[in-house]
């Protein structure tokens, strides 16, 4: 059993286990810090008109740097490696706060802290880590990306539900070994979060099986193009006889671990932040605005709507935190839970629907202002839609859960 990392302190071994929803002092402290940053700096910047357009929103690099300077870029990196050593729950707490301010920045920064924790903490060889860590820690703009998706590839379960995968699933990005041991990579990846800002990319390739190569941004033959229709800072990675040394190869466990990280609860926490921002904006508004000689909130229909919004967000938060905690406590689940529910996927499906509905209803409270591009509400709706329809969407998530509930294991 691996000892789960805790934010700022190792967990006491042997402490009596007891159901407890208290956040730790450290979690409260970091939430406070991030919330202040969001309120004072991120939110005002995120509400500038150019950030309210739906696509091609420039990433707020200065604020990304500031957030990195708070230590967030290395949030999940173990303490002994110079990171904050936070656990998955703490990552969710931080991601929600950032997401309430600016989901693009939250997604970008979250991707880096997630990957640095995973790569350095678990997947790299010691030699790889020794090369990686100093550069990562020294350079405040050292970001990370994981390139798995390929154009025209079919990653949805869809037709293969409850059947062995068939069809168009083989990777087209291929790596072959040169005589000197170098890897020569050719192919294209798209929908890669952080591609435009990453200095190191973990790239999934076909090389007699699925393997993962660490490719620096400045490797010869690697080119990145930005794409505008996704949340966060996304792009395509073009690899044309791109050469990396032999020791760029990660171990065989890397592919599965990186794939699993796509479903990290912190991603849903960013979305939850969007929902919270929309809900809080609506709550503030309906407490002020008068219609029919009463404040809006004093109308039954509005009070009911707000209650439903608040309930949905609280339920989503519960599922996300539960999934995060389960990630930190893999054994606890096996021992004590009867449910076969894949919690992270369940949290994704629930949160995506909940937040979209919250954002839409929050916008409705604002009347015509809810659809104006210079107001934040339409952006919340748009961002929530992107979560609802990213990574093959909720239909795919539910099919995956359906398989798990039936005990079906993909061969």
């Amino acid at each position, binding site marked *: 059993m691996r000892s789960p990392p805790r934010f700022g302190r190792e967990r006491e071994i042997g402490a009596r286990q007891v159901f407890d929803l208290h956040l730790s002092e450290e979690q409260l402290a970091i939430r406070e810090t991030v919330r202040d940053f969001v309120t004072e700096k991120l939110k005002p910047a995120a509400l500038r008109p150019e950030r309210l357009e739906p696509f091609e929103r420039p990433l707020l690099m200065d604020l990304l740097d500031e957030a990195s300077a708070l230590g967030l870029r290395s949030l999940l990196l173990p303490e002994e490696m110079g990171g904050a050593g936070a656990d998955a729950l703490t990552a969710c707490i931080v991601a929600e706060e950032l997401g309430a301010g600016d989901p693009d920045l939250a997604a970008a920064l979250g991707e880096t802290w997630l990957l640095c924790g995973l790569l350095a903490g678990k997947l790299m060889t010691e030699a790889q880590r020794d090369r990686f860590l100093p550069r990562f820690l020294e350079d405040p703009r050292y970001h990370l990306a994981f390139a798995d998706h390929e154009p025209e590839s079919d990653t949805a379960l869809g037709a293969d539900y409850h059947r062995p995968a068939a069809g168009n699933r083989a990777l087209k990005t291929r790596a072959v070994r040169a005589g000197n041991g170098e890897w020569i990579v050719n192919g294209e990846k798209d929908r890669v979060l952080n591609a435009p800002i990453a200095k190191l990319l973990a790239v999934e390739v076909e090389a007699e099986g699925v393997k993962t190569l660490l490719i620096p941004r400045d490797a010869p033959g690697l080119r990145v193009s930005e794409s505008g229709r996704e949340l966060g800072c996304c792009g395509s990675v073009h690899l044309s006889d791109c050469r990396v040394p032999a020791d760029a190869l990660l171990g065989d466990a890397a592919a599965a671990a990186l794939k699993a990280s796509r479903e990290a609860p912190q991603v849903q926490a960013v979305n939850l932040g969007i929902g919270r921002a929309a809900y809080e904006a609506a709550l503030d508004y309906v407490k002020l605005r008068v219609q029919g000689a009463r404040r809006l909130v004093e109308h039954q229909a509005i009070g009911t709507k707000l209650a439903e919004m608040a309930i949905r967000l609280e339920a989503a938060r519960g599922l996300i935190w539960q999934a995060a905690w389960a990630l930190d406590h893999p054994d606890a689940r096996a021992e004590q839970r009867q449910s076969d529910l894949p919690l992270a996927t369940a949290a994704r499906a629930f949160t995506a629907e909940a937040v979209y509905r919250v954002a839409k209803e929050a916008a409705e409270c604002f009347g015509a202002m809810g659809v*104006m591009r210079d107001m934040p509400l339409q952006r919340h709706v748009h961002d929530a839609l992107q979560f609802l329809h990213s990574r093959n969407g909720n239909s795919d998530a539910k099919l995956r859960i359906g398989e798990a509930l039936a005990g079906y294991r993909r061969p």
Partner: protein
Amino acid sequence: MDFSLNEEQRAWQEKARKFAREEIAPISLKRDAIPDPRETFDWEIIKKGSKLGFRTAVVAREWGGHGIDFVTQAMVMAELAKGDSAIAKTFTQCWKWSHLIAAVCSESQKERFLKPFLADDTYVLGYGLTEPSAGSDNRLPPEEDLKAGLRLKGERRGDEWILNGDKVFIANGSVAKLFFLTVRTNPNAPLREGTTMFLVPNDTPGFRVGKVFNKSGWRFYQNAELIFSDARVPDDNRVGEIDGAFRRRGGDATGDALFGALELAANALGICDAALEEALALARTRRENGALLKDQQIVQLKLGRMQMLTEALRSLVLRAASEMDRQIPSENAGLAMNLATDVVQEVTELNLDLHDTVAPMDPLADKLLRDSIIWSHLAGDTVQRLKVARRIVG
């Protein structure tokens, strides 16, 4: 009981379908993508549509219009909206108020405004009710606060009225040549008893267009701020009695008030048809892991639901329009408007959902959904539902 269209109705429907397919749809996504809301408008499409009669379709025949009935109106609106909901709305916004010109304007006003409207392919109409802090209160004046609602002030000075104040979110605001404006002419009376309607040409001294609103959906359609600083409107431009703006309109059981409900319901139907068409085309051609999307259960269920909702809406729209043509009092137009909100949003959400695995935020599916969100505050919010429901519960 007969749901079929007569020959004239079918001819209009066919003409609208062709125009939507050949002229509107090809420019729809391009106009939608223009970032500056002042630039999305396109006079060419308005002129083309006007020459085909879509701008003046509902003006009575004796006045030189086409006088199409409500069923035809509903069918034409749906067809145009299938090409582009916002372009369709630009045309039908003129219908709404050409109803009014014909119904309540004096002969001299008709001479001065209806004739130029009929003669000029770029003469579009606007209407202004909403103000910065009075939206819902105009539509559903509160019983508890008699003075709530609009504040654009009109004061009589000789043969003129002096207007001061702002209107916001005004339909066709930056392109209309003539506005129907509701103005508070008695600040000491409740809304329904202190408001007068005026015809205000866009070259009225003291009037100017302010901001054009940057909407997330319906981007072609211009909603603007109208600013009045000592704007001078002759008393000849007054519509109906002084302080009588609301009294007049309350008496008309099948006219412009119901038209607004029918308009939103029929326009939404067009969006649903566009979404269904896009979704079916995708499902029938797109393969996923080797199999056509249409062969998957969950895809079939989504498409079935899209069509089910769309046909339910179409049936209620047709019924409401037919009742309006026969002057049968009913709440069906209002209910169709409410239903349209639920249906158009769910149908466009399902369409976007079906595009999930293909590409992020398919541009057409995204646009159809953004257009549908407009219904939230126009047709399906609490106020619009309560308005209809209160007539039902009595």
